[in-house]
């Protein structure tokens, strides 16, 4: 996996492949790569090398201030060890890219907001979500309960008290703003 030629850590073919598999453009991929290279003192780059979470977060201010930072890291870390490889980062920014279609974004967002990883967004998940959104001054239990109830009333088409992936994606596809808020520039 080491770069073929001296200097460039990934080959042209790899770059082409990444551009075909993600929604990122080549300059964006190279940008991410350069950021990671700066991180690496050993000059020993490989696409599989994993970097610790803290270092990655420092590189990208968008991640640093995000209340769902840990979830993003959890969902996109391919080995769920809170370490990030180059490809994991590409995955992350591909989803957050402007060109990624809304449905794809929503599918990932579902995983992101599913805090207990049970493939359903339940009332508890929504309450955690509220806490994270308001960060410092949190709502009381009662208020969160109300919000969760109302939200489920709006989104839960099947009336079964939780949201599946399809419910969620469907609801999000009715929200044109979601495309813009769930994206960031590199």
């Amino acid at each position: 996996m080491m770069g073929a030629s001296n200097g460039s850590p990934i080959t042209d073919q790899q770059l082409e492949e990444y551009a075909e598999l993600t929604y990122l453009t080549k300059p964006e991929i190279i940008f991410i790569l350069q950021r990671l290279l700066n991180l690496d003192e050993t000059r020993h780059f490989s696409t599989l090398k994993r970097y610790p979470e803290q270092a990655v977060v420092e590189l990208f201010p968008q991640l640093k201030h995000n209340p769902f930072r840990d979830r993003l890291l959890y969902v996109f870390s391919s080995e769920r060890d809170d370490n990030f490889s180059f490809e994991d980062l590409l995955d992350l920014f591909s989803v957050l890219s402007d060109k990624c279609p809304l449905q794809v974004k929503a599918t990932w967002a579902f995983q992101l907001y599913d805090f207990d990883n049970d493939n359903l967004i339940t009332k508890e998940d929504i309450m955690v979500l509220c806490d994270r959104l308001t960060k410092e001054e949190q709502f009381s239990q009662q208020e969160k309960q109300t919000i969760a109830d109302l939200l489920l009333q709006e989104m839960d088409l099947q009336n079964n008290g939780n949201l599946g992936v399809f419910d969620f994606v469907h609801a999000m596809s009715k929200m044109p703003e979601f495309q813009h808020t769930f994206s960031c520039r590199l």
Partner: protein
Amino acid sequence: MARHRTVQHDAMCQIEIHEGPVGGGDRLYRSIAANASREEDKIEVLAEDADGLVVSDGGDMEGADNPLAMAEATSDAEGISTEDQFQSPSVVTTNGVVGGNESFSQSFRRWSSNLGRSVKNNKRTVYNKTIRLMPSRLQKTLSIDGDLITTSGSDVDHITMELEQREQLMEDNPIAEQLRIEAIKSIAQRIATKRQIRAQLTQTVNRRATRSKSIGLLRRYNYSGKVYAARIAKLLKSFVTNFELFYGSMKQIEGHFGSRISAYFKFLRWLLVLDLTLLLFIVSFVTFPQLLAGPTEAPTSNTNEPTANVRDYFSFVDLFTGEGYLTKSVLYYGAYSNQSFTLVPGTAEYSLPHAYFLTITVMVLATFIVVSISMGRSYRISFIEASGTVQNILTHKIFCSWDYGIANEKAARLKHATIRHELLEQLAQRNRPPPVTGRWQHLRSTALHALAHATVLALIVGVAASVWALLARFGETEHFAAWSALYVSLLSNVTRLVFGRIFRMLGKVERYRTVATQLNIQLLRDFLLQLTIVGVLLAFWLTRSHTGCWETAIGQELYRLIVVDFLLSTLLLTVVSAVRYGLHRRCTTATITPPPFCLETHSLGLIYNQTLLWFGLLFAPLLVPVVALKFLFLFYVNKFELLYLCQPPTKLWRSSQTQTLLLVLVFVSLFGVLLTHGYIITQVRVSSECGPFRGTDYMYQLFMQGILKLREEHLFWRVFVYITKPAIIGGVLLAMGVVAYYLRAKSRAQIAKVKLLKELLCMEAKDKEFLLANLSKIARGKECIGDGFGSDRIDGCLRGGGLRSGATDKYATDPSATWRYEHSQPTVRSGTGTVPSGSSLTGSPVRGYHRFEDEEKLRMRRS
């Protein structure tokens, strides 16, 4: 998922029938499986899956004869021409069933087998008839955008298999390859997984390709042409994205304020790009040739010139008044020549009047089309597709509230506070007792609103009248000094700003229930005011007696309006905010807040400028660079203001809807401009001393002369006469009316269908609940609902999906449905395993109510 589910449904329907003659299907399957050697492992994966689903069939079903897997194998092995093979299993099965008893369950099975077959056939024929015949681009959007995430599987093999079922993805040509890349991109999986999927798909395609015959030469050229086109498009796209205008600034703004504020800047950028395109065309087709041809020979200009302020030297004041030296420059209509000339000797003539007329008309029309299209798209996305968003306020506030672009500590804190505030407000609104809906209350609020509207209208009318009166009093007088020319524009701009403030204060008194309503009404009022002022000015200019070069005069007025607006609303207001901010910093008491950044006012300002520009295009073609420069400057001024002076708006307003409204306003003003242009071109006499159209009475005559030169029998002439016949125009209008009616009816039908489908979804959820309850009951060793019905009943419960099941239960819950009493012979079945007391009950007739609607429901599900 939808597709996945239907496939499995088919599988379930057919599996039941296999119990008799297992042999036929099985043998067929084996023979095919032998052919498709590599597919074996995949098929097993799926076979297990299907087994898990139809577990109730137990002993009868050996995992091997799984029609789904078989279909899979067939289609894999034979590629496209599997039609006959595809049907064979169901043929075998129907034969097998005929011999059996005429019990209900069997008739049901036969019916379901027929259903399964017809579904399959229908799907195929419909697919062949529709999607296949569509142009490739449409096909692409339909198939890829339509159902992006049909892959529900989580492992590589599963997803690969589902992708392989789509034939248009698996063809061996460049278009299919593009489609494949797009499809793989859209899978919500990691890069490593996608890579594997791609490798597998490529393998499959290559294997199939060796069997298909080689493509013809023509087709090959066609393909390679398309590939090159796609490559070039890709290159251009990457070029455009790489050189995105103001990329750094946009990123900074987004990082500080999120996507809502950056929407305003995007709007500004969009207008700027539009103007730059306009500039390119106008300069290259109109101004540049004029400059090359040299100044007009000015036949009689210096004898009795009405405009006194023409000078041959440039003075600084001219920049503001647009007069003096500039009067004779290419900035205005008057300077353009009415002659044709040859730029390079020996080549064709270049007719400047035609170029002038055509460039401007075509550009305005093209802009109109662009604006209409983007308005339509924006409207579709934010209002039609998001239908019923009115109720989904909370969804929006929770799931769309955090901006992932925020990259700044302060901004993040502000965002948290805003979200909290909005949510609290929402909760308070819920908890608040519904407003007293007494007659008096209602009357009072209605009266208040009516009064406010009346006041605003009266104010606007008053403004219009006074502007007219002032123009009539002072507009005609000669300019004594150069600066006095600025009076009119100063007046109108100040009026616009002042009355905008007054309306805003009025809006606060009115107290609308929702902020959005207030905002929109505010926007509309401001816009109406703007439109009125511009309209009055135009009407005055066009109706006054035309002496001298009146076109240039109007151009100058417009120039002054734009310059003064720049001075006032851009520079002066920024200075005011800076002063206010300075005071805010000085006196730390909370008396003076930092100035707010009002997005609506700024956006309306943009629309105002753009309207003036579009209108002025005819009279002053080089207003375009002026406005473009202004917008460029405005971008940086606004950015500075936002970053350092103003407090960002703290409302989580729905940017896409406001954006749509703004586009609608742009559309309306552009439409007005088009109408006015049409009036000017056909009804207003051009001045006889200057400009490209001197020598004709009306602008359109230039064009008509060209047509009249044609012989009487010329095709164009005949077509023209034919088209302008009243009958044809009436017919076209009628047809448009019919189309509009049809579309309206269609949209109504779609709304109804959406409603119906939602209800269906609810019912389905109930079905699922019921089935799950039954399942757990049986697992605990109890019986299905309806004790007396016994084993067959349970079979029905588990096998027939939620359709036939729980008839008694449903009868209780839904008495309004149509029911049918069914009396059928019992089936002799044994070894159903799951039911302990099954054998004792066989022999009793099966009775039950069955809903007619179930068939309806199935049909719905199929579609």
